[in-house]
């Protein structure tokens, strides 16, 4: 399975319970890879518009694009 699919499957499998994940949540998916390599996989998925960032301002999390509370839900078009 491609690395990107491992991430997407993980997120889809958890989507009922959670929509946002810390970067560290992805590290156990790739026990043979270091954080910098995992970051490259996530960056590729963000650039492909399959993942998106959520930010509180102090902390950033990753989620599937379109999952969780989107700006439209806040009344933004």
């Amino acid at each position, binding site marked *: 399975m491609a690395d990107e699919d491992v991430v997407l499957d993980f997120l889809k499998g958890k989507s009922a319970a959670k929509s946002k994940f810390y970067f560290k949540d992805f590290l156990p998916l790739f026990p043979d890879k270091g*954080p910098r390599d995992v970051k490259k996989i996530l960056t590729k998925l963000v650039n492909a518009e399959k993942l998106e960032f959520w930010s509180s301002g102090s902390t950033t999390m990753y989620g599937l694009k379109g999952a969780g509370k989107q700006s439209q839900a806040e009344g*933004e078009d």
Partner: protein
Amino acid sequence: MAKFQTPLLDQLESGPWPSFVSDIKQEAAARAKNPKGLDYQIPVDAPEDLLGIVELSYRDKETHWKHGGIVGVFGYGGGVIGRYCDRPEEYPGVAHFHTIRVNQPAGKYYTTDFLRQLCDIWDLRGSGILNMHGSTGDIVFLGTQTPQLEEIFWELTHKMNNDLGGSGSNLRTPAACLGQSRCEFACYNTQDICYQLTQDYQDELHRPAFPYKFKFKFDGCPNGCVCAMARSDFAVIGTWKDDIKIDQEKVKAYVAGEFKPNAGAHAGRDWGKFDIQKEVVDRCPTHCMNWDGSKLSIKTADCVRCMHCINTMPRALHIGDERGASILVGAKAPVVEGAQMGSLLIPFIEVKPPYDEIKEVIEKIWDWWMEEGKNRERVGETMKRLSFQTLLEVTEVPAQPQQVRAPRTNPFIFFKEDEVPGGWTRDIADFRKRHQR
């Protein structure tokens, strides 16, 4: 007439300091007049609604801002912070009020043209309200809506050649004092290293993968004008190894009252005649100075570079010539744990382009913290949890006396067998001959 009555905010204007309330009122009035005939891209009364909701928060004693959101510019995980208010019907002008952090130039030098361009973008596409500067160091644009974000980003990057700053679990916008551009105390080129590391670590600045925020700050000398030691995870503070340079004739001139101490900075009242013994020698924290009535001497081995004597008599005393920096790690404000100041990791390091030696230390810390740090744990907390000794091991920095504040008070260094000549294997039977159980 104001849209909302704001008695609590109005009271703030009565204090002795410039008030943000007055500033917002001024911006509200300017937007209502619209002297430039702008086609405002977010509600014209955003500043009025901001005053209204802040007044409500003061009255309710609770915030009316929600926490974060999915907003940003494409590919960046920082620089934009989603902000929504929880009373959008009453305050529609701030229903969506996102913050944008703009990377400030090193040393915060601007042309007036640059400032006007910033203000023009923000008048048209935002609330017109901004912070110069936020506590991160960035220029902070306060209040815009999602459709404006890419537009603002395009104008900043393409027309002004300027980037967004850091937010979230990123490297934050590095900050430097104005350094050698204006200050004779600067021990290295703070602006250059700040700019260079900002360029070199673009990926860390814009694509979050740290457990939490990480800040660099660069102070040119121990006066610490950007407060690196208290405010940054990785503080680079200028210092020197050799003697403070003393011009004995100028020292005598200070004593004779020919020069004003502190360059006249405390001239607001009459402090009496300058007393070098009382105001300089006795104030030295390590008592490493002596004044015999005609000659000032300093015992360099005991000097801790507190800067007091140099600040008081800048024409007579000057930083040494063997210059570099100390690196301190782990300062932070309270969140998971309480506030802490940086701990000295490297007493002296040369600071010369391309800064590879410093980058090596930074990257070793990052590799360790990204593996071992818990979510929302600053590197200072990881350091406390796993020990300073572990930090020494991962950075391959030897334990040194300078890392110990006072003997026998913080014994974080334990020798391992392979570090001790001969190890410590021992014959227990032989030991028991001399020691009863």
